[in-house]
């Protein structure tokens, strides 16, 4: 019998080479770890296909199974997913303490997982069955899991007369954190989620500017984190060795060759690490394809 799929169900990519939506690791103690900080693609697709469903109503379930045994755990909602995280700066895995990681009677070397996002009785998104990535201990995840841009800079909507700007936040609870402020009335935050070109332009520009400001006065831990990250792209310079004591005004920084090299290396490294050029091009091609198909519709 042919199976007819009338559903608009979205495929969740898990533990795939490249850009996984969800990554799951398991160790020989039968504990598992889940990283779902990369759900923007799923959110975009759900917004397009199910615009009337509030993402906070979409539950995320991870099911560990083998034969008749199945253990399910809810990992939050699409609006507020529960996730383990990597603190790249302190080089440690930060796990959510409210989740029981025990796989129970399933052996981690034989278990398969499935990710489901459901709304009421309906499946909105689902993965195929997949195996967890084997690790000896959770610290090993540090070598594999990639840095996410959301861990570097926050995005905050405010009422403003510009399209966007960036700075280090001055109010608690995020005091001192690098933030990209975006125009609330224009809904730019949502545009960033749905259009890789807008995201690429804003994030690359903000990153460069925040690095520049951090070099001038590295007076808080967030600035130092940004600079440490930037330094990973520099072959020649360590940010602490840069001679910034002669810089009296922000404009002076443009006269300093070493500083400029450091910032340029950081900016191009950041763009490369997050594939911003590729994402820009892909989004552009998608838009062109869309326009062409619209034109064709009129022609026929």
């Amino acid at each position, binding site marked *: *019998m042919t*199976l*007819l*799929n*009338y*559903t608009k*169900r979205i495929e969740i990519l898990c533990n795939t080479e490249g850009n996984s939506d969800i990554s799951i690791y398991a160790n020989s103690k*039968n504990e598992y770890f889940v990283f779902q900080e990369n759900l923007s693609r799923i959110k975009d697709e759900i917004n397009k296909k199910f615009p009337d469903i509030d993402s906070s109503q979409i539950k995320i*379930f991870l*099911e560990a*199974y*083998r*034969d*008749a*045994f*199945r253990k*399910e755990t809810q990992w939050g909602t699409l609006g507020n997913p529960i996730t383990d995280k990597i603190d790249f700066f302190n080089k440690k895995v930060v796990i959510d303490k409210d989740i029981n990681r025990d796989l*129970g*009677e*399933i*052996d981690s070397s*034989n278990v*398969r997982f*499935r990710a*489901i996002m*459901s709304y009421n*009785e*309906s*499946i909105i998104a689902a993965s195929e*069955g997949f195996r967890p990535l084997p690790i000896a201990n959770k610290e090993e995840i540090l070598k594999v899991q990639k840095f996410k841009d959301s861990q570097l800079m926050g995005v905050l909507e405010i009422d403003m007369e510009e399209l966007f700007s960036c700075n280090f936040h001055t109010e608690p609870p995020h005091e001192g954190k690098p933030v990209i402020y975006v125009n609330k009335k224009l809904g730019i935050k949502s545009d960033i989620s749905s259009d890789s070109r807008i995201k690429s332009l804003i994030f690359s520009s903000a990153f460069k500017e925040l690095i520049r400001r951090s070099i001038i006065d590295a007076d808080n831990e967030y600035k130092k984190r940004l600079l440490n990250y930037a330094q990973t792209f520099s072959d020649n310079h360590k940010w602490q060795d840069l001679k910034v004591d002669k810089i009296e005004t922000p404009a002076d920084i443009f006269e300093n060759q070493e500083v400029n090299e450091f910032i340029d290396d950081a900016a191009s490294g950041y763009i490369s690490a997050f594939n911003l050029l590729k994402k820009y091009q892909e989004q552009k091609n998608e838009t062109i394809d869309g326009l062409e198909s619209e034109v064709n519709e009129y022609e026929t």
Partner: protein
Amino acid sequence: MKLKIRKFNQKGNEIFSNFVKNSKREFTSKKKSKFKTPINIINDKSLTEPINLAGEIDVNKTFENAFEYAVYINDKIKDIDLKKYRWDDGLFNWISAALFPNFFPGIRSGIDEKRVFLSDVSKSKWRRHFARTLWEIYHVYGEASLCLLFKETNNFSDELETVSKSPIMFSCKGIVEAYSDMYFKKEKGNTGKQTYKRGEVADFRNFIDELYQLELNLDIFRMSKNQIIAKLNVAFNDRVKKNK
């Protein structure tokens, strides 16, 4: 004869595998049709290891049906560390050997080695192993498993084969309970009978076809039997009423 449950070590698994192959040859050549428990293998300390808190089993015991077997063996291993032994081929091969006449030859695909021997290299076939799968179904579903276990210990029925083939169906309580409401009637004791014939409207195979469709759209695993039945067409709902 009663023996405390043990597990085969690697060598024990190899010897039992050879025993199964030999039994298969004897059956095929019509040299033998009935087989005995290989006491010399299961009782050999060099081929086996003890299991902490395991109970004793009667190796001469025969069972009225798979359910009776599953209840019996579940009681004997209920105190062992299942985190360690649930997927242990040595344990379930030992049980398969200890109660060998109950499982071999089988009624369907009678002498298939997978029915009695768990191979470490073909784990995807483990669901077809009598000793382990019959126990696992009872371990997961308890009393509700009677609808899948009312047949003989050596009969891996069409229903069991079909349900166990799909990970979702095999592990979904709502589906097992819905199946029971539509196609099974419990009789006295722990026995029962199938209440459909193949080819009838809304028979078991139609049910599975419908489930494969529903599974694409619906989160079946988290649905109750009533929610599942309500999604099926009216012929299935009629069957539930008729089966009461």
